[in-house]
């Protein structure tokens, strides 16, 4: 019984590792600078955002270190976007493999999400560099950022499991997700501080802050960078509202995982 369990677990780990390595290698194949792009790409991207939004448009100028907060938000959003976007294609794009061998299918979705974690880690280095330049003071709150990232990861993989399984039958999922993710992007106050929304309507701000993407990103900004940033906790003291983002996270993950598990025996013939 135990040896059987171990064997299964071992196989998944070996496979997972190779799939992540393969993913990473394929991504930077045939480029002169190779892996360096993993670092250069976010660096340039951030420089553009920084110049345009902070220096030219003065968005969030009233908040100390808003530039760094902006970058942190963009990095976390890109991470979420990658976990879901790559994950939802994971099964359909591996149809050749799935139709020919039997292996635990969740490995492919997880391998995509691990690639996203590697990218996130590289991006975080760049955020760190900007934080040093911007002289963000070190705080214990920074240690909480990995927890918010973890929450975002749980939400993202749950979403990826659900969408990957639905995508096998209905290829519309990719298009629908593209639209929905645009809504989520603007609804999560990433390019602008949530403070701006509060100025317009406190209620709208509360509704936005109930979405776990907004909550994780604003919380990470609040604890790690500047306590002048509005987040779910500064908006309301209602415990139920405070719990909603966490409940959504757990429900999405559980529903996604169960649905994926139930559908996965049929992927080979449906994909």
């Amino acid at each position, binding site marked *: 019984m135990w040896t059987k369990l171990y064997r299964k677990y*071992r*196989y998944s780990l*070996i*496979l997972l*590792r*190779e*799939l992540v*390595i*393969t993913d990473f*290698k*394929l991504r930077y*194949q045939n480029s002169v600078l190779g892996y360096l792009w993993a670092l250069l790409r976010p660096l340039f991207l951030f420089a553009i955002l920084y110049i345009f939004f902070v220096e030219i448009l003065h968005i969030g100028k009233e908040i100390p270190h808003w530039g760094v907060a902006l970058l942190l938000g963009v990095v976390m959003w890109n991470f979420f976007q990658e976990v879901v976007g790559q994950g939802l294609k994971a099964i359909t794009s591996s149809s*050749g*493999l*799935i*139709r*020919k*061998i*039997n*292996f635990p299918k969740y490995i492919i979705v997880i391998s995509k999400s691990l690639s996203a974690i590697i990218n996130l880690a590289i991006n975080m280095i760049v955020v760190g560099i900007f934080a040093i330049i911007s002289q963000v003071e070190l705080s214990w709150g920074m240690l909480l950022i990995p927890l918010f990232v973890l929450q975002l990861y749980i939400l993202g993989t749950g979403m990826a499991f659900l969408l990957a399984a639905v995508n096998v*039958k*209905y*290829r*519309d999922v990719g298009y629908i997700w593209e639209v929905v993710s645009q809504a989520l992007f603007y609804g999560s106050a990433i390019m602008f501080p949530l403070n701006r929304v509060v100025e317009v309507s406190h209620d709208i701000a509360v509704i936005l802050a109930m979405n776990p993407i907004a909550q994780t990103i604003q919380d990470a900004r609040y604890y790690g960078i500047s306590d002048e940033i509005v987040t779910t906790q500064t908006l309301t003291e209602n415990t139920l509202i405070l719990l909603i983002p966490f409940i959504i996270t757990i429900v999405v993950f559980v529903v996604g995982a169960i649905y994926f598990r139930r559908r996965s*025996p*049929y992927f*080979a*013939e*449906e994909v």
Partner: protein
Amino acid sequence: MSDKKYAVEVHNVKKRFSYSRHKNNSLKRAITQVFKKKDRSKDTFYALDGISFNVEQGDFFGILGRNGSGKSTLLKIISEIYQPTSGHVKHRGKLVSFIELGVGFQPELTGRENVYLNGALLGFSRKEIDAMYDDIVLFAELEKFMDQSLKNYSSGMKVRLAFSLAIRAKADILILDEVLAVGDAAFRKKCNDYFETLKDDKKTVILVTHSMADVHKYCNKAIVIEKGKIIYEGAADGAADVYKSLFEKK
């Protein structure tokens, strides 16, 4: 019932496919289908219609049948790639199946990288591959090509590399779907040797083939499938005769 331990048991397996199963990939179709309420049974057929047989430990078991008779579907169900519509399959011991050689090969990666990737699919860790890497390359006769990307390989080279990896697979039960119907004389010789060692090691093998020479040479038992049903079960020689007669009817 006897308490004999079979390596593979296939019990009354049926598999239903729908003719239009690939056309249902959009929401629009799903929605229109709800309104149409068509009789679904007209769109489906049984690729396997009540298949039962047992494979004993150490059998070299042949599955014969014409194209489209349901052999590959059966292999996929035994390999647990497909789920049977009804009935069940069971196996004892580690089962490895080769529906195709070189599954998961990445053309953009080098031969070396593909060895590790494909090895992982067979359940080998990096360390284990390290230990047998030289043997794999030597057997595939690709010493000079391992750092080239796979897209530059000829199909023969790819098959050699895949085969060299496949024979390392540690399994009690092996399932082979015509994987060895390719390659030149030298390659066939290697396959031959591999089959002989499988036989000597008393491994359980399930082989799908169209080569009656192979059936006579290796198999001790065989079944013949026609239109999803078993029309013969027993000694390999008899199976070969039944199989040949399928083509003489018309």
